[in-house]
């Protein structure tokens, strides 16, 4: 591991998360950015690059308000929301290794509680408006309900297996200050919850959130002089499946393939880790079902075995495969892909209090939206 070309995340920060936040997205981004910078121990003028990990207010405004007086590198990554906050590390690597920047702030936030909610994103698609909405094929819960029915048909899927994930993540959220849904639930609560799109209930669906998160990344060499335990970027990869977001929930030739596939493989190969080495996993959880499909695609089990894998509750506190240890997008906050990175770093640092997984050495993060995927492996500085 060359400390001059290997990166480490040295600072993380976030706003509070809630519906109908009084701050605008620009102010939320600035607040998260300032906190990440303060956490890093670097002075703002030492951070000379910024990456917006999705559609955001202008970079110059955010960087200026964060005190970044020496901005040399500015990037706006074009991955679908969700993949961006992890994929931003690919751009950060390129920029830092090329000498374009020495330390980079990555920032992303959303206000999904705006009118129309997260559904409006799809309503803006002319083909969805003209072919799907007229038959009520609309809204992400329906897309994933249709995926779940197909999964059930091909492999079998019990309500209790989905419920195990919902219960596990609520237990993590209950141990995590600031979670939007922190009241513990039982499997009976889950089974009594109303359906949204069968077999998915409201407790299978992610939150509606306003908020932002940010992190600071620099070389490992520099990270060694900073106050926080470096979260070393040992493997990171991004890539895309060969279909569009417009078609993937109806026409995809691999209908159940919403996982990172070779992207995950690449990140783990770079890091030189196998599944047994992974201590804690953060996976994009727009719905419970998404976790099952991505665990399969990441190779934690064979296709069709994911539901059984998670069905015994092993993803929860004390379990053998801790997943989404802040409560994830289901229960903590829905800042697509960003909260997963922050939690992956915090677990590795060992600063998660009641939700800390013992002795974390390898922290895996995998996120996606539409056809775009990104996977990250974080480890300690092993010299």
């Amino acid at each position, binding site marked *: 591991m060359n400390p001059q070309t290997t990166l480490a995340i040295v600072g993380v920060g976030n706003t509070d998360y809630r519906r109908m936040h009084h701050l605008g997205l620009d102010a939320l981004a600035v607040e998260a950015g300032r906190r990440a910078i303060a956490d890093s121990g670097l002075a703002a003028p030492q951070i000379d690059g910024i990456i917006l990990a999705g559609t955001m207010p202008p970079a110059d405004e955010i960087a200026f308000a964060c005190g970044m007086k020496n901005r040399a590198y500015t990037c706006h990554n074009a991955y679908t929301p969700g993949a961006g906050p992890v994929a931003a590390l690919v751009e950060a690597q390129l920029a830092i290794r090329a000498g374009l920047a020495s330390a980079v702030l990555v920032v992303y936030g959303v206000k999904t509680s705006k009118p*129309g*909610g997260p*559904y409006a994103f799809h*309503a803006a698609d*002319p*083909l969805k*408006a*003209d*072919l*799907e*909405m*007229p*038959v*009520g*094929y*609309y*809204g992400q*819960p*329906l897309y994933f*309900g*249709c*995926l*779940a*029915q*197909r999964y059930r*048909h091909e492999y079998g899927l019990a309500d209790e297996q989905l419920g195990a994930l919902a219960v596990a993540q609520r237990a993590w959220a209950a141990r995590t200050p600031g979670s939007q849904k922190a009241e513990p639930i039982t499997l009976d609560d889950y089974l009594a919850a*109303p*359906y*949204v*799109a*069968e077999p*998915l209930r409201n407790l299978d669906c992610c939150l509606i959130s306003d908020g932002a998160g940010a992190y600071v990344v620099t070389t490992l060499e520099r990270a060694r002089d900073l106050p926080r335990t470096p979260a070393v970027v040992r493997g990171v990869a991004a890539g895309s499946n060969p279909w569009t977001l*417009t*078609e993937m929930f*109806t*026409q995809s*030739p691999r*209908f159940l393939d919403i996982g990172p596939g070779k992207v995950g493989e690449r990140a783990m190969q770079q890091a030189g880790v196998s599944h047994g080495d992974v201590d804690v996993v953060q996976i994009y959880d727009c719905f419970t079902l998404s976790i099952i499909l991505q665990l399969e695609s990441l190779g934690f089990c064979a296709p069709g075995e994911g539901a059984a894998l998670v069905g015994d509750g092993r993803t929860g506190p004390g379990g053998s495969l801790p997943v989404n240890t802040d409560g994830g997008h289901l229960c903590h906050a829905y800042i697509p892909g960003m909260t997963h990175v922050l939690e992956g770093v915090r677990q590795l640092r060992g600063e998660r209090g009641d939700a800390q997984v013992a002795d974390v050495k390898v922290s895996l993060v995998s996120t996606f939206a539409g056809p775009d995927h990104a996977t990250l492996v974080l480890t300690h500085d092993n010299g």
Partner: protein
Amino acid sequence: MTDTAPYLPDFAPRFDTDLVRPYWDALARGHMVLPACSVCGAWQWYPYEFIKCHADAHQDWKPVPATGTLFTYTVVHRSFLPNAPRDTEPYVSALVELDGIPGVRIPTFLVNLEGRTPAIGMRVRLSPLPRSSYTAPAFEPVGQESRP
């Protein structure tokens, strides 16, 4: 599973482009047409302003079979359509694969279940459903058999 669905979405196509007009015009006349490449005949679903296989081709709308199999479905208990009432009776939204056109899936209502639970692989046939200002694709079960 609730099989009586007094609520069914009524949300007219927006026609941002004319690309999909032949599809809706045909449904209004009670049958289905789909676009194909004018050069090689490959189906082009969804329709785009460009043809994927041949740059200089155009969309050729052709009649398709009115029968197929249920690929997947969900019983929707809460509709997020902008004009949906907050509380609705469940309805069934589905994807159907038409006979002889593998890989092409039609987003559709699933109707006239008459107590039957939808089963993926079940045989279905087109039964266009008039809405207030358009005729929607809808499929209904055929016979009793279903196949995986």
